[in-house]
């Protein structure tokens, strides 16, 4: 602990706050993704479930990030906590790619291509819808 007379420089304090905000969002985000993966496994079974569950987490996070990005007034703290922390950790690129790669190795290029295309198109739609919702939410709040 620093003695109370020497104040830590504001940049350092701000950096610590930023990291705490990111971590505070990252933990629930990763836990939710992990739970969604388990849920998918239980429902569909095996790798098919994994693929689909990553899709659920990815689309949910993409929609939410769209909402945050769509808010008219920039909210740096909300972006750190919910955007970079929560949505960033809820969604994943590496597991998604791993599943596509494993589908290719199992000789299922059709499945791999379907996962790529569905994720891409649905992701772009999710962002678009999220941006619209965010803008509307922001306007409603501004009017009040």
């Amino acid at each position, binding site marked *: 602990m620093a003695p109370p007379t020497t104040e830590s420089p504001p940049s350092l304090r701000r950096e610590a706050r930023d990291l705490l905000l990111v971590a505070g969002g990252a933990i629930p985000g990763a836990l939710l993704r992990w739970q969604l993966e388990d849920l998918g496994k239980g429902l569909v079974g095996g790798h098919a479930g994994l693929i689909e569950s990553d899709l659920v987490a990815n689309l949910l996070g993409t929609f939410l990030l769209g909402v945050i990005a769509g808010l008219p007034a920039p909210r740096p703290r909300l972006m750190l906590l919910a955007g970079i922390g929560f949505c960033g950790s809820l969604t994943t*690129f590496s597991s998604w790619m791993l599943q596509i790669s494993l589908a290719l190795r199992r000789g299922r290029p059709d499945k791999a291509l379907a996962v790529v295309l569905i994720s891409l198109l649905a992701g772009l739609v999710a962002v678009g819808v999220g941006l619209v919702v965010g803008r509307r939410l922001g306007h409603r709040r501004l009017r009040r």
Partner: protein
Amino acid sequence: MAAPASNDALFVALGAVPGAWLRFRVVNHFEPMLPRKHWGTFGVNLIACFAIGLLVSLQTSCGLAADRTLLLLGTGFLGSFSTFSTWITELHDTIQRRQRREAVLLCGGSVLGGLLAVAAGLALGSS
């Protein structure tokens, strides 16, 4: 069984925090240097793809580690380090700005590069 399940959650959370921090710092670090900020996210995702390929192949070839290592490093760390939402949002942004070349490069480069990176990781780990 409540105890092992909660332990598993701890492993995921312990991996997720440094993963998210590193992504945040790396993307911020490269933002002023790269002409367009989405290439920072692109780099992070490709590194994570290589690492997850390596991790999975090491696990299967050497029996390196139990499920918990995968939870900590795979689901927690690499899952949080890499991101789908930011990538798609940036891709959406390039499309809206009608930067067609940039959008094709970002989309195709990420998917093909990601597959190559996973394959390279898998090959290195099983060699």
